[in-house]
């Protein structure tokens, strides 16, 4: 019988601990347990057999760490072959009459993936793929991915399993005492990710005992429509007379696991510290129990690497500002590869309270696939909101979905055959909730009925691809009311029907409704309220619009979604415009010649921006820079050099100056001294090093002083630094390193520059360096802090 079929009507018993038993049988600290498949096959087969005899239906091969990071290709194949053979021997010799399956065991690689580790996502997929292929070759019945404590690595392993086999895949994560994975994912987020990608069973193992995993299991049971795995430790370890023992015995263990089995867990076993006796006890305690039927939970979930957003409980706000349409400054940022600008747009929307960020970086002249992939990666390094991937470029969509850490919202599919044929396979493979636009080859129907017909067609086709209704969100398309008087009513009518009759969630790009009308926010806010009342689940909207946010908070308060109206009261003061706040709060200090100098010197960012806006109505941008911004920076810079101003203060001023510059940049291209902007500076943290705070501080200050800085980021290979410096004809290269282990990479970069660009100066900095060391590795200058770097740049560019 196939395992998936068996699981429908039976509780599936897994095995228990392997590593902890091997230690008792003589495995030494630091010794690789996987080698025992070859050196001690009889012991491994014996352990597997004992589990089968005790009642396990599944044993995991002794391949937890069997991958190419630890073993050569030849040895890996020998290990997996021997491991599978050991399990087959056990299966053949076991006296148990139960169904028996062999699972290829896959544990974590031991390396953290980028952006916080140094392991590339695709390399992780390839690593797991090699192990999977060998498991398949030697005849396992299923793949068991376990003890994963990072969501992205879990995704890499699952993807590798799906791309390289047709076998069932079980996925189990290691949750900590806080009920989350080590890298932050909640059980709901893991349900979204793993079910979306089609795992056949999901759950929790290792890390804790059954009691401590109860809350995790409850959440998994609540949200998941997939069989749930529970494979806990025998409690916590302790040392007794030089021997490691666990504090939950077989009896207690089996009682606790049996309780959770009654609640709906159907795949059970043990992890560290458990033995065949535990499985035997578990089998006894659960004898006669049938698994509860797996019911389809109707949650529409998208997730980030930490949390899930559930549709239908509260209105969901999708921030629309990461999009170049109609935004000159945003377009410029994309063309200049200025990812920080895009990231700031994301952070600001998060601060405004959106739940999901729409990400659209499509421009005619850029490589959209690579830009979208990069933007998604960078956003996910710093923002824990789920993302809506917004592109009509199929390759860009796949590139972004592949590396996305979580279950994304996909924008969009529509009723055209071509659209469904390209998008649905991506939804099926990578998981996702897809926004479906109610239009097809004949355009957008004028009537609500026409849009509903398209919605029904989309649902039917999705089903053929194996995509559930809950993973489709309909957008009934807000059309311009100034062009067609019935537009709003048509959209709302279709929306209401889809929500109430078809039972699907809905989304709208709200602001389209007001196109061509004055004071658009007023129309948008009211239309948003009408749509919410007609069943709108999510809005793609501008969170900087006070009218939209007023509607959102007021709606929640009126609908009983905001306890004691707390959120409304908290937000009400923000409905006053920023400039009113600024003027109320600012007091003039006579020590400063102008308000802008004061704002910058005191590090008041918002004020600096507002005052600059005001000043621009009276004088030119270049005059503001020369009269106010530069003098303010000089005051603070001098103070820092004289040690009367501290580093955080210097930086707050620099940030305020940047805000002021940004306002000027939006209205004028004339920035500053061309002798500086024409002589570019390239900066980077060297290869192998991931520390970039210091480098970013230097960048900020150099930019403040009018230098054109190209920041390559961190972990940059020497060749890349040279390539960029050559291309830009850089006057100065700045390099940063914080580890003694990465200084050789700095030395190599300097020597490459010396050989190829003799006129280019090199300045270095970082905690492990000093003047002498900098000279030794061939740098022109060591700067102890950012101001010194600025002074050196000024000196050489005189």
């Amino acid at each position, binding site marked *: 019988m196939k395992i998936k079929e068996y699981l429908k009507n039976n509780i599936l018993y897994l095995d228990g601990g392997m590593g902890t038993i091997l230690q008792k049988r003589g495995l030494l600290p630091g010794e690789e347990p996987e080698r025992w498949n070859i050196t001690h096959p009889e012991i491994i087969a014996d352990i597997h057999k004992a589990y089968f005899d005790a009642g396990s239906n599944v044993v995991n091969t002794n391949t937890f760490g069997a991958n190419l990071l630890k073993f050569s290709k030849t040895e890996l194949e020998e290990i997996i072959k021997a491991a599978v053979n050991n399990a087959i021997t056990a299966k053949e010799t076991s006296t148990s009459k139960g169904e028996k399956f062999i699972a290829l065991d896959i544990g974590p690689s031991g390396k953290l993936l980028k952006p916080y580790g140094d392991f590339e996502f695709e390399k992780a997929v390839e690593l797991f793929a090699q192990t999977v292929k060998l498991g398949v070759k030697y005849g396992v019945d299923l793949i068991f991915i376990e003890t994963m404590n990072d969501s992205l690595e879990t995704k890499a392993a699952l993807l590798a399993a799906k791309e390289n086999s047709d076998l069932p895949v079980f996925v189990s994560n290691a949750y900590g005492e806080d009920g989350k994975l*080590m*890298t932050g994912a909640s059980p709901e987020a893991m349900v979204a990710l793993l079910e979306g990608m089609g795992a056949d069973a999901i759950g929790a193992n290792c890390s804790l005992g059954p009691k401590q995993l109860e809350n995790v299991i409850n959440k998994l049971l609540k949200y998941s429509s997939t069989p749930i795995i529970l494979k806990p430790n025998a409690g916590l370890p302790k040392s007794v007379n030089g021997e490691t023992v666990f504090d939950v015995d077989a009896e207690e263990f089996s009682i606790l696991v049996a309780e959770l089995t009654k609640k709906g867990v159907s795949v059970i076993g043990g992890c560290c510290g458990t033995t065949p006796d535990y499985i035997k006890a578990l089998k006894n305690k659960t004898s006669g129990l049938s698994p509860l039927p797996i019911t389809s939970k109707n949650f529409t979930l998208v997730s980030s690497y930490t949390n899930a957003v559930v549709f239908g409980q509260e209105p969901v706000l999708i921030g629309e500002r990461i999009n170049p349409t109609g935004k000159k400054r945003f377009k410029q940022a994309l063309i200049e590869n200025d990812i920080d600008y895009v990231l700031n747009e994301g952070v600001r929307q998060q601060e405004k309270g959106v739940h999901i960020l729409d990400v659209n970086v499509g421009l005619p002249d850029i490589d959209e696939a690579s830009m979208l992939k990069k933007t998604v990666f960078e956003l996910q390094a710093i923002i824990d909101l789920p993302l809506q991937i917004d592109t009509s470029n199929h390759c860009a969509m796949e590139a972004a979905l592949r590396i996305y850490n979580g279950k994304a919202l996909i924008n969009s599919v529509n009723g055209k055959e071509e659209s469904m044929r390209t998008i649905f396979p991506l939804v099926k493979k990578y998981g996702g909730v897809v926004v479906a636009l109610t239009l097809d080859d004949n355009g957008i129907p004028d009537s609500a009925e026409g849009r509903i017909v398209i919605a029904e067609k989309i649902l039917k086709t999705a089903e053929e691809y194996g995509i559930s209704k809950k993973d489709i969100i309909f957008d009934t398309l807000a059309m311009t009311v100034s062009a067609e008087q019935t537009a709003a009513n048509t959209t709302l009518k279709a929306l209401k029907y889809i929500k109430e009759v078809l039972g699907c969630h809905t989304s709208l790009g709200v602001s389209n409704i007001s196109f061509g009308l004055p004071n658009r926010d007023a129309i948008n806010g009211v239309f948003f309220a009408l749509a919410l009342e007609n069943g709108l689940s999510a809005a793609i909207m501008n969170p900087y619009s006070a009218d939209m946010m007023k509607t959102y908070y007021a709606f929640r308060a009126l609908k009983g979604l905001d306890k004691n109206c707390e959120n409304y009261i908290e937000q009400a003061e923000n409905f006053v415009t920023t400039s009113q706040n600024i003027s109320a709060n600012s007091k003039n200090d006579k020590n400063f010649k102008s308000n802008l100098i004061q704002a910058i010197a*005191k590090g008041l960012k918002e004020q600096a921006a507002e005052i600059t806006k005001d000043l621009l109505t009276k004088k030119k941008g270049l005059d503001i820079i020369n009269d106010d911004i530069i003098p303010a920076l000089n005051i603070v810079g001098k103070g820092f050099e004289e040690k009367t101003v501290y580093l955080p203060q210097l930086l707050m001023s620099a940030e305020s100056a940047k805000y002021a510059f940004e306002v000027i940049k939006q209205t004028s291209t004339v920035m500053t001294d061309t002798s500086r902007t024409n002589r570019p500076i390239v900066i980077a943290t060297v290869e192998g090093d991931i520390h970039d705070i210091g480098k970013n501080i230097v960048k900020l200050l150099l930019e403040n002083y009018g230098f054109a800085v190209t920041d390559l980021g961190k972990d940059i290979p020497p060749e890349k630094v040279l390539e960029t410096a050559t291309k830009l004809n850089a006057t100065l290269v700045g390099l940063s390193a914080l580890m*003694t282990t990465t200084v050789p990479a700095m030395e190599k970069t300097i020597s490459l520059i010396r050989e190829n660009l003799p006129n280019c100066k090199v300045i270095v900095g970082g905690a492990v360096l000093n003047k002498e060391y900098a000279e030794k590795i061939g740098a022109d200058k060591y700067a102890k802090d950012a101001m010194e770097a600025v002074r050196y740049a000024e000196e050489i560019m005189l």
Partner: protein
Amino acid sequence: MEFTVYKKSFSPPSINKQEVLRYAGCKETREEVELLFNEALKQTEGKLTYSVCFCKVPIKINDEYVDLSFAKTHSLHLTKCLVGCGYAYIFAATIGLNMDRLIAKATKTSPALAVMLQALGAERIEALCNKFEEYITKQSSVDISLKPRFSPGYGDLPLSFQKEIFSFLGCYKQIGLSLNDSLIMSPSKSVTAIIGILEKTITKKQI
């Protein structure tokens, strides 16, 4: 002998504000600095974890090397630090990845805040190590005192010794702490170290 690696989560240690400001390069507090400090506290509230994995090992010292049971090293500085000790704790501590995420975010949006978060992170991990030391001292059945924490990279103990500690404690599986090819730890606000244990009665005899 089997080595038992323990894992423990601690409640947040109390914050030493002066220490945070010192790490941030401020000799005294000022209004602007105060605002930043409060913002750093607000952003990290409830986001940090305080996890430690550790193991007590017997050690032997001879003229050539220190035998820590799971690895040997020729470090003279470590030898000096462990003189008189029959056992040592090997431990790894971390305040988790969220601090790195917050610092990375601030690095893009507000370097001033990034500096303050960095300082807070440095103070937090030190505070966690101190709390861990208090814990093992209290837990000991005999009266002990602890030698100063000694980490790979100190003196002549090479940074590459990290690999031995990571492999022995299973840091990634235990507390999600990983080591990259440049021997940088992730999460970055983490510490690994060796702490010599002096049993007070033995110390007296030796003196």
